[in-house]
């Protein structure tokens, strides 16, 4: 298991190097935006990973409420935290891309606003987990996660439902949308690389949560034993 983990981490690092090379040197320069369009190769894959993390959090929260499994709760905690990390990258790289292209850092339109709301929902989820005490914490967090996930499809569909400053979908956007084949390759390599980074982070954070649960249980056991004596 340990060798498998190390092997996967080395594979992920190699993939990151290759995908960065693809994004910065192989993909052609976009005609209207120029080099700044290369932010797309980080911005879109990190948004994808954030969405996947929140989906895992949603499934794990349902599993926790159904089975009361501490493993499911640990997975929910891990995936939410990693999702927030990637969503933060999206919310920072987006305005950095917007400034030279739109002339503004931010505008309160549907895609940007719903993404910010998504980030706030999962930050509040993490705050709830961190500062709430008592036996109901995990149940409340799971309920918040299930309702909070409603915003993920809204973020995805916002550029289809509303007229937005954010570009219309390039991928799965219907007629007239699409990418140059070389851009597609660079995008897919980055998508794969960032997905692997997300997996490494979730697995690491999951193991940490399990260890913290064990320590907490040991402290509780000692406290009970001390009380009995």
């Amino acid at each position: 298991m340990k060798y498998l983990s190390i092997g996967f981490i080395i594979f992920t690092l190699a993939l990151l190097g290759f995908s960065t090379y693809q994004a910065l040197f192989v993909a052609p320069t976009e005609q209207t935006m120029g080099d700044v369009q290369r932010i797309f190769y980080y911005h879109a894959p990190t948004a994808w990973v954030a969405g996947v993390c929140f989906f895992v959090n949603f499934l794990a929260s349902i599993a926790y409420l159904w089975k009361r499994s501490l493993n499911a709760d640990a997975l929910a905690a891990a995936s939410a935290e990693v999702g927030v990390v990637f969503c933060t990258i999206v919310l920072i790289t987006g305005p950095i891309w917007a400034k030279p292209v739109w002339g503004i850092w931010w505008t309160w339109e549907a895609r940007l606003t719903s993404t910010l709301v998504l980030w706030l929902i999962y930050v509040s989820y993490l705050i709830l987990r961190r500062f709430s005490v008592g036996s109901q914490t995990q149940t409340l967090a799971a309920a918040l996660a299930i309702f909070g996930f409603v915003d993920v499809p809204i973020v995805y569909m916002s550029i289809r439902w509303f007229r937005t400053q954010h570009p219309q979908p390039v991928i799965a956007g219907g007629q007239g949308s699409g990418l140059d084949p070389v851009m597609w390759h660079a995008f897919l390599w980055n998508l794969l690389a960032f997905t692997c980074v997300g997996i490494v982070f979730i697995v690491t954070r999951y193991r940490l949560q399990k260890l913290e649960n064990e320590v907490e249980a040991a402290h509780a056991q000692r406290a009970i034993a001390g009380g009995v004596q």
Partner: protein
Amino acid sequence: MTGQVALKAAYAVTWIIPLAYLSYLLSRFRRVRCEIKDLERSR
């Protein structure tokens, strides 16, 4: 902000945030391992 500066800034953000998160996770791992050692010693 020019395109090149924006690209470099976005690239830096994309790497700095995950690296900072990774170092945060590793520091938490170290703390938990210390606690486990303390618990084992006090048994």
